[in-house]
């Protein structure tokens, strides 16, 4: 398993893409997806919702459990991934690509986001 170098990571196991035109893409890491098991239901924040760094903004349900989804940044949701809503297994099969969850117009980001190497060390993967 390798965590893409161009992303940044939260300790809640979300990743954040580089910010383009003020908007960043957010998903969960492969480590998190593996820990969850098969994701069967994704409750994602809606377009226009305001999400706050470190606070819950949705949930991911797997065979064995349900987990809160946290936003790694503060801002307004500009898009939720309908493909994941329709086929939640994308979170398992392509957590860093087609399994992205939502996009946020970033108002504020915490200073403690991790680099890929830091996250690899933090998660042990």
């Amino acid at each position, binding site marked *: 398993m390798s965590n893409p170098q161009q992303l940044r990571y939260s300790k809640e196991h979300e990743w954040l893409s580089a910010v383009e035109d003020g908007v960043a893409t957010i998903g969960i890491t492969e480590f998190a997806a593996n820990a969850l*098991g*098969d994701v*069967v*239901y994704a*409750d994602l924040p809606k377009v226009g919702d305001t999400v706050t760094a470190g606070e819950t903004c949705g949930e991911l349900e797997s*065979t*064995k459990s*349900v987990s809160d989804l946290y936003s790694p940044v503060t801002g307004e949701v500009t898009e939720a991934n309908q493909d994941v809503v329709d086929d939640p*297994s994308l979170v*398992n099969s392509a957590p860093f690509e087609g399994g992205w969850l939502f996009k946020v117009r970033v108002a504020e980001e915490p200073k403690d986001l991790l680099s890929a190497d830091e996250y690899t060390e933090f998660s042990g993967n």
Partner: protein
Amino acid sequence: MSTAPRLTALDALHRSLGATMTDFAGWDMPLRYASERDEHNAVRTRAGLFDLSHMGEITVTGPAAAAFLNFALVGNIGTVAVGRARYTMICAEDGGIMDDLIVYRLGETEYMVVANAGNAQIVLDALTARAEGFDAEVRDDRDAYALLAVQGPESPAILAAVTDADLDGLKYYAGLPGTVAGVPALIARTGYTGEDGFELFVAPEHAEQLWRALTEAGASHGLIPCGLSCRDTLRLEAGMPLYGHELTTALTPFDAGLGRVVKFEKEGDFVGRKALEAAAGHAETAPPRKLVGLVAEGRRVPRAGFSVTAGGEVIGEVTSGAPSPTLGKPIAMAYVDAAHATPGTAGIAVDIRGSHEPYEVVALPFYKRQK
């Protein structure tokens, strides 16, 4: 109490296969190897290989073994023929279910009782206490066996490749001693998945050899290793109860809709008879909550302990719930008030973290294999 989890004889092998492990009843067991949905589907359509070594084996021997088991358990063990097995329960004096069991008759005066891992010590202690006055010996054989299961429609072909035993002659709920992959085994046609399959009781030192032989024989049949996560969804689809969920000490077999396992007509007294007779009468005249199946209209998954509601009132409680790979929808088993227990009952909901999600009451099981 915090003690290190127990490891099965296959622990190193599971880790080498990349299994995600979980603590289950004090044992470190494989939860899944890769995708639990793929594992589930493999058992439904091809075959899966399980390590179930956490199950608790107790051997009962002696001239009065049958009479003793008839007294200690609710079933009529005296009618089980040599080489056959019986699903039964052990109840407390008040009729509460202490565990559900499979009893194998291995010989004229020899039986093996298989208890759930979490109850094995309780069952062992109860059997030991109840054996007083009977010419029968109760032996803790938990460490004497590893238990592997091959489950799924391809399992007879896979097992046939590694044994000369007469599998065609081995009926459902039968067991015979034989040799599998060169090691002595008790071959039982039992399982907990709703599919055809076998459970193989072997000495722990032979477990790895057997696992590897089955893996090799099963490769061309699509057999994959399977963890406890898919075992749970498989048994739930098959409408099979799990102790601690559908079965507890607070419930009698009649409460659980399994009154048929209680055999009042057998000879002699048995532990719990008086309370169970009352429970049987009560179930006839004023049925308590009934165990039903629930199928979701939406996609959110009910979990054990969630409330079942109708018209805003709580009318029951979910005992097991999961996304069903076969149905493609969330399913649950729940105890609900008798007035709402009829299949097709409308207006039922499950309170999923404050949101009342619509559910339909259905007859159990959710899934039945085509024979």
